[in-house]
């Protein structure tokens, strides 16, 4: 069974050695895609989104490489809005839960501080329930339910507050939908981690009075990159099947339907790849650049091994 990251240990190790000692870190280094001579990013496309997800994860080494028998898995889909193309497709969530269980996961826990209505409106509650996973909705305003986590390498954000429930798991799968975001221009694996962080702490990412001058945008993007230095997903499975390219993140907005699911562990490379799906360049997205400056991954897609298949 994979090593469980206790809350106390997480805080201690994070404070001591920073980004190398975070949840799933050992799993990532052990099963590095490139070390195994495989792709850095796996992309599966087709009309059947459940099948795409299974194929993308298989292409990236299979779920058994990330989920050990008896382990507890935390998953974080995006369920921010019910508008089309703004939330992780339920079929993708179904596929991840199913493959985790097939790999021998003891539990799959879907974490969120959003309301039951968010989960009902998107149909994600039904998918989670039918696949036998646990929907763990954390009271968003009770600070006692969130653990302070120092960010030693943080430039703008010095401390995160991650939901306590997160630390009861061995594996973490980040499951955003990639889409437009008015504040960052783009959202994907990096920004999705705000879904684990205490809402009041997230509010500090945004400047007082909702100022939007350039320094405010940079502050938000720096905070997101800083947060990502202490929370590393074991695996990312990204929904790029149908998503909004305008008026994000809430929508409604113009829908693009590339019908792709992406699996990988390099958040910077995955986000850089997803940005290209609607004509953006990673170098123009401050958040991805800040994460790259933190050495969280590869921004230059020429240096990333991308394998694409039709599912």
């Amino acid at each position: 069974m994979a090593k469980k990251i206790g809350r106390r240990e997480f805080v201690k190790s994070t404070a001591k050695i920073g980004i190398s000692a975070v949840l799933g870190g050992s799993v990532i280094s052990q099963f590095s895609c490139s070390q195994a001579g495989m792709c850095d990013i796996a992309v599966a496309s087709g009309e059947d989104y459940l099948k795409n997800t299974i194929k993308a994860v298989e292409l990236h080494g299979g779920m058994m490489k990330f989920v050990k028998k008896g382990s507890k898995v935390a998953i974080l889909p995006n369920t921010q809005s019910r508008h089309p193309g703004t939330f992780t497709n339920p079929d993708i969530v179904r596929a991840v839960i199913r493959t985790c269980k097939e790999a021998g996961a003891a539990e799959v826990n879907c974490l969120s501080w959003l309301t039951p209505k968010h989960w009902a409106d998107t149909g994600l509650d039904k998918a989670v329930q039918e696949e036998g996973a646990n929907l763990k909705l954390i009271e968003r305003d009770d600070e006692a339910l969130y653990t302070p986590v120092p960010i030693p390498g943080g430039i703008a954000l010095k401390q995160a507050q991650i939901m306590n429930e997160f630390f009861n798991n061995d594996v973490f799968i980040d499951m955003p939908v990639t889409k437009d975001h008015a504040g960052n221009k783009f959202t994907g694996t990096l920004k999705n981690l705000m879904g684990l962080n205490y809402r009041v702490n997230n509010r500090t990412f945004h400047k007082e009075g909702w100022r939007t001058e350039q320094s405010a945008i940079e502050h938000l993007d720096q905070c997101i990159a800083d947060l990502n230095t202490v929370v590393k997903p074991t695996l990312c499975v990204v929904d790029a099947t149908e998503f909004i390219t305008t008026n994000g993140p809430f929508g409604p907005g113009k829908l693009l339907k590339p019908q792709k699911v992406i699996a990988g562990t390099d958040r910077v490379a995955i986000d850089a790849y997803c940005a290209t799906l609607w004509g953006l360049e990673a170098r123009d997205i401050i958040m991805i650049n800040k994460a790259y400056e933190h050495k969280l991954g590869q921004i230059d897609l020429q240096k990333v091994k991308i394998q694409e298949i039709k599912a």
Partner: protein
Amino acid sequence: MIRNHRVLTVFLISSMFLLFAPSGAHSSVPLDLYKFLPLSGEVGEWERNDQPQDYRGEDLYEYINGGAEIYHEYGFNRVIVQDFRNKSGKSISVEIFEMEDSESAYGIYTFKTHLEDKKLSLGSDAQLSDYYLNFWKANVLVTITGFDEDEETIEGLQELARAVEAKMKLNGEKPHLVSVLPKKELITTSIKYFEGNLGLYNSYSFFARDIFSLEKGIKGDYESGYSVYFIQSKNGEVGQKRFDEIKRDFEGSPRYKNFNSLEKELFMVEDRKSKRIFISYFKDSILIVMGAIPSHQVKEIFSSIQENIGK
């Protein structure tokens, strides 16, 4: 006696002003947004579903988690949200946003609409997209969203929109900057009005910092394939000295190539996608033309803008 005459005169002038002033165009008179919501049975088979939601000021963050900044940049007061459902189980959401003034409502309307949308005759302007529509009137923006693209839903969107619009006895003007854009070949559905840096950043990210000192701005796309930006500076007259600084920023940036100083008050660069960008200035504003277009035509466009400013 003289004093009484003066009081009477002031009263009459004030009354005349109130009588002919556009009603509801300013935030000083809060609107009863609930009056604009159709009742169950008023619009075919569409019945109200659940209680309306109501968010004011900073609370918008509760509703549009992560996407509130852009609304605040334009000037947001309040939003109410009411869901409707018909007998076949289709859902439609009606959002009524009270913005600070007509310019704010027009601005966020242009932010949320898309070049490819279909124009509708509703309110001051209206556009229908694949599964949603937006219209604005005075200081109010209305967004009506369906959750699929079925004919029944699209018809429902328009019926509900007409019912809301009929209840809005309001008037308001577009910002005067709209008239600055040359009219020939202008695609009116492409217009974006900016009241801050975030709006511009979402349209085109010239630089990671606000080199234009944007106060307000407008952008339009043209049938020949080019775009025109008109950006008013918050620092007053641009002047040759500041323009030369902007010129140096572009010349020294790795994001741009093939810098060419065509004239003292006009230069050209190409972006990473080899899109040509011509930049000049006039009084307190920066004038930009982007696209494959010869420089003599750019000068004609700049002259046309200067003429429009003088009108």
